[in-house]
């Protein structure tokens, strides 16, 4: 392995889209029997590089050599035939077909001109056996968990291509157990001498599995370094190009705790969603909601915002009980809600940044009183500047923005309605480290300007950083409310784990 020529080498590759450079003179070398992590913030050029290697894009300059021979893959299928297989974050298999059909689609064994199903199933079992996977290959793929689908996707890619395997954020939707199973497979493939390119946002996983790391930033190669002995802080600063500030707990003005609550919930609950709970939220306060997935966090937010109707309890706004029967009502009381899944519940991908920003405000005014074009443009420009939304142009369709910038547009949409009370569900999920810090700064800033916020997050450190108070949910019940010095990751974990944690019956 030591002196072997590289399996895949990329030399001086550049790519530009409409004159904007996405990748500039990048070198990348993958050896056989190596797991090579490709890191960088969103927009660093990772996916452009991957797409050039896998044939989805064509390079403008430079060369790609596979085992010393220049290759020019026409498309993904061509790259597969050359020996470069890819497994994407959202498994790109067909869940309505059987496991065996997925493995052999397009190359089914034949007998007398017809598909030899028995032979196909037998060979599928043999292939999956080598991955330690013993499943019914005649069952539809939909019957299996994402992790198993992921392994089937890898098995297919390896069986077809067999030289280079690109794993594009394969672990994003897997739990710890499943990640371990996947990594066992990856290690096994490394033993077999395959070259594996691994893309992930999770640094822990990168340290766990990778041998070498290449960091890209703004389309340029920053460095390629061995993982062993690499300092984490150094790696993060390579990715960000700046030093990360240490997390500090925000100092909270003790006077806010004495003010009259803006929103108060009394015995608010809905059977099967969340048990009745009491909660006060004051102006200038960030109330954090912590808990495991399925503990009732999002359900609570949906009750408060009128998406789900409560079957018990009351909501008062500034001391007056209100009937929160629909999101429209909630908006009319000055509420705003950024949902968790921005792709399905938030952004309208084909509309421009401007149109996405003015949505909620226009809905609040009613369609009879349209915002004029100049008002819309002024509003959009103001928020693009205020929130530092990176877009070339306010008329750009939002689907072309990175995750972090989409999240900021969503925030801008609600800020434009000038809300008194803002609910954020996982505001930092799936966005890169830099945008992450900006969103947190924004939350603190809004709070200091007197807004009341309710923030749901899985990142406990982050919650501890900005919350004035934290409520902890478990099994659809509020189990603890932490204030002042009690606020710490340790206390949250204890609250979640208390009473011998019966586990999640979601």
């Amino acid at each position, binding site marked *: 392995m030591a002196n072997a020529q590289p399996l895949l080498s990329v030399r001086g590759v550049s790519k530009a889209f409409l004159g904007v450079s996405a990748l500039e003179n990048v070198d990348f070398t993958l050896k056989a029997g190596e797991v090579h992590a490709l890191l960088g913030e969103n927009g660093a050029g990772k996916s452009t590089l991957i797409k050039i290697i896998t044939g989805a894009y064509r390079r403008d300059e430079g060369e790609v050599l596979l085992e010393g021979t220049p290759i020019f893959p026409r498309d993904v299928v061509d790259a597969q035939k050359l020996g470069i297989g890819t497994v994407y974050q959202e498994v*790109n298999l067909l869940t*309505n077909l059987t496991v065996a059909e997925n493995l052999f689609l397009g190359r089914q064994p034949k007998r007398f001109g017809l598909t030899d199903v028995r032979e196909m199933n037998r060979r599928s079992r043999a292939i999956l056996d080598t991955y330690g996977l013993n499943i019914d290959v005649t069952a539809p793929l939909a019957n299996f968990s994402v992790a198993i689908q992921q392994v089937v996707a890898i098995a297919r890619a390896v069986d077809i291509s067999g030289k280079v395997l690109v794993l594009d954020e394969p672990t994003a939707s897997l*739990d710890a*157990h499943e990640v371990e199973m996947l990594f066992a497979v990856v290690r096994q493939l490394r033993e077999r001498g395959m070259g594996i390119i691994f893309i992930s946002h999770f640094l822990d996983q990168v340290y766990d599995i990778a041998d070498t790391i290449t960091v890209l930033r703004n389309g340029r190669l920053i460095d390629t370094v061995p993982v062993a002995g690499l300092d984490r802080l150094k790696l993060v600063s390579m990715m960000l190009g700046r030093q990360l500030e240490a997390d500090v707990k925000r100092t909270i003005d003790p006077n806010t705790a004495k003010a009259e609550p803006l929103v108060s919930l009394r015995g608010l609950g809905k059977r099967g969603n969340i048990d009745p709970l009491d909660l006060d939220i004051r102006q200038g306060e960030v109330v954090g909601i912590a808990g495991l*997935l399925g503990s009732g966090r999002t359900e609570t937010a949906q009750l408060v915002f009128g998406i789900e109707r409560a079957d018990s309890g009351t909501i008062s706004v500034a001391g007056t009980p209100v009937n929160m029967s629909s999101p429209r009502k909630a908006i009319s009381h000055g509420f705003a809600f950024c949902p968790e899944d921005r792709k399905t519940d938030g952004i309208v991908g084909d509309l421009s940044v401007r149109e996405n920003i003015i949505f909620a405000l226009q809905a609040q005014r009613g369609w009879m009183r349209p915002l004029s074009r100049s008002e819309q443009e002024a509003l959009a420009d103001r928020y693009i500047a205020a929130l530092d939304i990176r877009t070339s142009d306010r008329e750009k369709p939002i689907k072309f923005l990175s995750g972090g910038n989409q999240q900021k547009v969503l925030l801008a949409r609600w800020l434009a309605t000038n809300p008194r009370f803002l609910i954020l569900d996982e505001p930092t999920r799936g966005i890169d480290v830099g945008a992450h810090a900006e969103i947190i700064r924004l939350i603190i800033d809004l709070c200091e300007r007197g807004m009341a916020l309710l923030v749901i997050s899985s990142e406990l450190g982050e919650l501890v950083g900005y919350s004035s108070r934290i409520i902890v949910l478990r099994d659809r019940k509020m189990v603890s409310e932490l204030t002042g010095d009690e606020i710490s990751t340790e206390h949250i974990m204890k609250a979640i784990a208390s009473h011998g944690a019966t586990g999640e019956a979601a």
Partner: protein
Amino acid sequence: MKNSKYLPLLATFVVFVLAYVICISVFPNMLSTRVAGNLLTDNAFLGITAVGMTFVILSGGIDLSVGSVIAFTGVFLSVILRDTSIHPLAAFVIVLALTTAFGAAMGGVIFFLDMPPFIVTLAGMFLARGISYLLTTESVPITHPFYSTLQDLYIRMPGGGRLTLIAMIMLAVFAFGIILAQRTRFGTYVYALGGNLTSAQLMGVPVAKTTVGIYALSGFLAGLSGIVFSLYTSAGYSLAAVGVELDAIAAVVIGGTLLTGGYGFVAGTFLGICIQGLIQTYIVFDGTLSSWWTKIVIGLLLFGFIALQRGLMWMSERSARNMRHASAAQASSA
């Protein structure tokens, strides 16, 4: 959960058996090969085109043109046999080539212009019907002796029933369809298109070829169905087979195929055809019921099957969600 794939098919089968049991208990005479033979003969043309429709719907599409193509085929045959001395067999070949090319062209438009199948085949429906009118607006009888020869071909079944040529053609088409769907690459590609187009493309499915192939197949079978229809009626008429595309879609859906594509079986469509045929036969036996009752019962059955499919999807979505929640909970506690 593995059963859920076969559940709609099973439901269809149960409905069919129930319907047959009810029919027999009211009219014991219906349990005869004579009735069975007639049922197959009367629905032969519908069954043949429904096989094509099954492939189209499995791929996530729809073909509204088949009724018009059947009428066109009949008119074309009757006119060509009246005005020229071409042998019917040669005419069959010509008309099948025409309808196959017509289907392939629609498939090409759907794929290459990225148009919804609904619109493209709606245009095809008007086009084919219009051309039939252009050929003739009258009902033209077919008197060629070869037609009589074909019409007299049958196998006598025990009990006196006749399995006619056109019924045999239909059964052969179903057998062919089942093998094509389950045992060939093309069949798997059809399911793949209906499952997820993007994934299919990334996995190297030749989407263009398959799309064109599917609509060409549907066009070919509509043409064959038109030939069978002309044998059945001994005439060509441009107003014939109006709404047959909808009967075919109904048979496919009652047969348990998901309208959004990806799930279903050709064999289910056969049961769907048989159920429709049974209802018609029942009405004929009864003699007092209006034939519109066929439509009413079909309508109710369609509602039932759509509700069943929705319920199954809802159930599988729910269990998938539960699975996700359970594994996510594991992850965060680990």
